[in-house]
């Protein structure tokens, strides 16, 4: 069977993920999808660009899979993160878990997406409707982020400092 925790540049195939985790031992399946949302704190998103450190990200996904199986009595786990340009409503990440009972499936699913978001080396760049772009780095206030040349098209194209 193909690895069930991986990166992809294609649309995430949720039917395939559900099929992989739905096994006779399972009575509960939880699928979480992170999707590209239009509004963040009142600002309008056109698209997101996801960049990853692939070797490390896939290793981290495999570690999360293994750790979740240690913590909960899971049947199957599948983690997929998409990279590249994503339009509104596209899924950037999918967490699918199955377990004999739903307590474990919900808890593991929640833990997996929370921990994935904290530890897996993937970054998103906002493409705002106002034409600016911005790398998202939680914990870095705007004052801590180096200016993004693309936010100042006039000055970068005009050569001003």
């Amino acid at each position, binding site marked *: 069977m193909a690895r069930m925790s991986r990166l992809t540049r294609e649309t995430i195939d949720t039917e395939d993920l559900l099929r992989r985790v739905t096994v006779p031992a399972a009575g509960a399946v939880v699928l979480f999808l992170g999707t590209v949302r239009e509004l963040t704190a009142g600002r309008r998103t056109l698209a997101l660009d*996801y*960049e990853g450190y692939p070797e*490390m990200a896939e290793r981290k996904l495999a570690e999360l899979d293994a750790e979740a199986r240690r913590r909960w009595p899971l049947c199957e786990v599948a983690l997929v993160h998409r990279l590249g340009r994503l339009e509104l409503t596209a899924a950037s990440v999918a967490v699918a878990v199955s377990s004999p009972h739903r307590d474990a499936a919900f808890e593991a699913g929640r833990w997996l997406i929370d921990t994935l978001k904290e530890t897996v080396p993937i*970054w998103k760049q906002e493409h705002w409707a106002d034409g600016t772009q911005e*790398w998202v*780095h939680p914990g870095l206030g705007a*004052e801590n982020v180096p200016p993004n040349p693309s936010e100042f098209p006039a000055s970068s194209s005009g050569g001003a400092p």
Partner: protein
Amino acid sequence: MKVRVKLFAVAKQAAGAEAIELDVPADAVVADVRTALLAAIPALAPAARHLMFAVDAEYAGDRAPVAAAKEIACIPPVSGG
């Protein structure tokens, strides 16, 4: 010695490159790599204490040696998901 550090997201943007070569002492640890990186890319200074590093695709603390590393990467705060 020279080390090559992979850059991502805001670090790549600030450097204008996907990796950077840095001069560090022969017995350098991750902390030395951070110091050299900030010297090379002053625009990253405000983010300095938020930058993590990976050695051979695994998070590494400030005291981890880098001489034997096959790959070093600067990991700014992640935002996947």
